[in-house]
């Protein structure tokens, strides 16, 4: 009884801590600031429901990848391979879907798609586990392992796709991404929302989530607390893999295809950028899923603004780079622990 009372008291003290809210979510203010400024300068071509829908839809894929990357980075690792893993997994998804698509009669197109999706999920989990195993059991830094896989997935995809692309033959496949809920909300936005909620739950309310933070913050102490740190890291890589599969299903469906050379280029850097902008520490141990979601939105809004403003095509990246650095600079910094 007394205990409960005390707990309640202390919980209250948590919610009231202004410093904490501002610290964790100062990115929201930065984002709001940017939106307000953009609204003033760009007017309704920016401040338009359809435009915000576009921003969300266009960044759903990056967002899903960033969510997976958040777990990787919080656990103290990095994954540079996701852009090309996405190509490999996408190719597998389409190949399997097409294979069963020609095998079954047309009404069973959805079943072919289900097989394609399952294949993507399984392969990507295996790919993730492979990276995780080499990182943990082989004690090779994740930077090098995944840099290697970056080359490997891309290169092998190019080999099998002969440098070109795979296109889906099953008509229903494009429906996955190119449909709207209630006729207005594109499905990718819904997917992103659901996945973000799931990641939030995993990070905050599951053992695995807690272990990811512990391993990233102090691996030695985590190990001595009886945590199987290798398993946690491998699971994080597998989760990243699953996110790649989900992202690529959305992407291939949107484009009805995947291309060996041009798809997925630079996705890893964008995902990492979103994660770090969202306040996750590059050294691991610290960060929140909510922050990451806002990091994604911030990047998306900045791109969108620059597109609408029609900045000089050679300068646009300079401005984007500057805005990104400024956005992080403006955020309140947590004290070093």
């Amino acid at each position, binding site marked *: 009884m007394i205990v409960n009372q005390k707990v309640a008291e202390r919980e209250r003290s948590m919610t009231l801590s202004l410093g904490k809210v501002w610290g964790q979510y100062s990115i929201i203010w930065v984002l709001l600031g940017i939106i307000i400024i953009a609204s003033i300068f760009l007017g309704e071509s920016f401040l338009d429901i359809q435009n915000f829908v576009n921003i969300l839809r*266009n960044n759903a894929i990056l967002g899903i990848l960033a969510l997976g990357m958040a777990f990787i980075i919080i656990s103290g690792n990095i994954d540079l391979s996701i852009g090309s893993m996405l190509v490999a997994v996408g190719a597998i998804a389409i190949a399997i879907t097409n294979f069963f698509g020609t095998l079954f009669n047309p009404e069973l197109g959805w079943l072919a798609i289900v097989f394609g999706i399952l294949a993507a999920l399984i392969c990507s989990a295996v790919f993730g586990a492979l990276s995780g195993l080499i990182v943990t059991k082989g004690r090779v830094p994740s930077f090098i392992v995944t840099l290697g896989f970056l080359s490997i997935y891309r290169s092998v995809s190019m080999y099998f796709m002969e440098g070109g692309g795979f296109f889906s033959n099953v008509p229903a496949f494009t429906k996955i991404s190119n449909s709207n809920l209630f006729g207005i909300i594109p499905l990718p936005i819904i997917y992103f929302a659901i996945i973000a909620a799931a990641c939030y739950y995993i990070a905050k309310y599951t053992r695995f989530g807690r272990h990811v933070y512990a391993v990233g913050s102090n691996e030695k102490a985590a190990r001595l607390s009886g945590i199987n740190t290798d398993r946690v890291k491998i699971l994080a890589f597998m989760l990243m893999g699953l996110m790649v599969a989900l992202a690529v299903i959305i992407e291939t469906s949107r484009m009805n295809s995947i*291309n060996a050379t041009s798809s997925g280029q630079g996705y890893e850097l964008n995902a990492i950028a979103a994660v770090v902008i969202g306040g996750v520490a590059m050294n691991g141990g610290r960060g929140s899923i909510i922050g990451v979601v806002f990091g994604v939105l911030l990047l998306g809004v900045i791109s969108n603004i620059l597109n609408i403003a029609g900045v000089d095509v050679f300068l646009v990246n300079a401005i984007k780079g500057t805005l990104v650095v400024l956005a992080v600079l403006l955020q309140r910094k947590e004290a070093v622990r």
Partner: protein
Amino acid sequence: TKDSGSSKDLIGISVPQAPTGWVAAVQYYADKTAKELGMNYKLLASADPNEQASQIDDLINMKPKIIILFPHNDQVAVAAQKIMDAGITLINYDRTINPAKPDYYLAGDNYGIGVEGAKYIAEKLGNKGDVIINGIAAYGDAVNGARVKGFKETIAKVAPDIKIIGEYDSPNGAPESGLKTMTDALQANKKIDGVFSIDDELSVGLYQAIKEQNRTDIKVMTGGGGAQSYFKLMPTTDIWLASALYSPNMIIDCVKMADAILKGETPKAETIVPSKIVDKNNVKDYIDASSPY
């Protein structure tokens, strides 16, 4: 300025981001021409097909009259179809968007670069000898793949005695990349008669390697695109340096086409600009000191 009230109509231009001088030149000329014509335009560059699809969404939302699309590759077809579905005129530049059918199409001939290069090499080598291929797989099927395919198929047809003794790849089109790859290629092949390269800037590096290694066996080398830095080398050496012209300023015609459409004209629906060979015999017609590319 020189408009007819139509200047208020927005033109969207969507291009890939420049990993190469050639694409950068497309951006440069598109921007320059649109400015000169006093157009109201938005020029957006994208890193990958998915981003291009996103930018197309952004553009459609701005309600332009015409979109000029220089796609990454066929993947952009779904997005391109959306442009036309939204009632916007689509001018497709250079790379195809199968299976979508654009309103207008203007392109160079990537396959033709391979064909012209093969013919040139066959001629200079008298239909026999050993050649190597230098490609840039990262440029993708639409560019690298088509050019290499054109070369191989043509060689097999016109000069079956020419042997392809090696195929090399550089990570990108930088002369430095070509230089590194070629140094090793020369090390691996002690006698080479001809070199097929898919890109002029790459060829600048390949040539540098040949010079550094003091190799005299190579008689002919091609390139593709039309880079001034490569043109400048042509008259300076005994090696037959050639470029299969594929000028980035084809985009100028595209932009002009858009202007014409706004003015109510109906241009030709499909234009394929054939590839032309430039070598030391005709290079002075193509040297342009003011070109950045």
